[in-house]
């Protein structure tokens, strides 16, 4: 079984079983592939260089849209304009955090610096946001319902398996964030 993250002298440490690491790695890879910008060979190289993306559109996949939300409520045009300027770098920020977390999964004991812990918390959060969309978690009631699913022997279909995975990621992120809050406190 995984051990909860702890804040200590070495930094924030955690331990995951090989199967748990494998699971997290594949979840992280899934989210990375969702965030990977499309390869647009015809794109203006100068625009690409400064992070501009004039061909960007509001994501059609709900999970991707949750990762890259509109910045102005009820104003698609203003949000799109903002996407052209910022979405590429936002995707890169997220992919960077996900890749950093995936790299840490190669080691048996996970030892995180404050920056590494931040990357992990962002990565776990994005993984949970995607799982939550797949599980159709729309409100607190849905979340409660999914939260009740704790017994792996109950996993009989994709839905219940996803719920268990979501709850595992939630538990892991909660333990990490508690350790990060303690670390913040001790560094002030």
């Amino acid at each position, binding site marked *: 079984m995984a051990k909860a993250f702890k804040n200590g002298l070495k930094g924030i440490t955690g331990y995951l079983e090989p199967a748990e690491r494998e699971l997290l790695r594949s979840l992280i890879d899934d989210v990375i592939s969702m965030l990977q910008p499309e390869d647009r060979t015809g794109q203006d190289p100068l625009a690409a260089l400064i992070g501009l993306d004039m061909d960007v559109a509001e994501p059609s996949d*709900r999970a991707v849209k949750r990762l*890259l*939300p*509109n910045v102005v409520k009820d104003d698609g045009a203003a949000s799109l304009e*903002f996407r052209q300027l910022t979405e590429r770098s936002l995707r890169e920020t997220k992919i960077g955090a996900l890749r950093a977390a995936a790299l840490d999964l190669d080691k048996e004991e996970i030892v995180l610096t404050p920056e590494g812990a931040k990357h992990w918390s962002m990565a776990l*959060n994005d993984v949970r*946001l995607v799982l939550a969309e797949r599980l159709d978690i729309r409100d607190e009631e849905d979340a409660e319902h999914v939260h009740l699913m704790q017994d792996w022997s109950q996993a009989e279909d994709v839905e219940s398996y996803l719920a268990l995975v979501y709850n595992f990621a939630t538990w892991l992120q909660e333990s990490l964030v508690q350790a990060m809050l303690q670390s913040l406190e001790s560094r002030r």
Partner: protein
Amino acid sequence: MTLSVALGPDTQEGTRTGTAESTDSLTAPDIPWNLVIWNDPVNLMSYVSYVFQSYFGYSESKANKLMMEVHKKGRSIVTHGSKEQVERHAVAMHGFGLWATVEKASGGPGGNSGKSGGPGQGKGKRG
């Protein structure tokens, strides 16, 4: 939001993580804008408080107060400034996975919120 948050003393830790490019604004710079964080059923209460503390440098009590406002009222104005400033914060919040939007400050309490619901589709209760 979901789950509870651990309490601890105030902190002034400020790791600025904004990564967005400047988005040159055509709006007059003296018009204040609000950064709004919306409730959603996925983000952990502890995580939202951590983001408010570590990114904005807010004390723990201020971060928790804003977090609870998001949780209970569905949204909270967590900071304000020029359009460019709040847009930069919004990208940083999106980087953390928080649901952030920007809006012109209207002067009234709570800003020009008016409508319910977050910026996305769905059953609408999450906003």
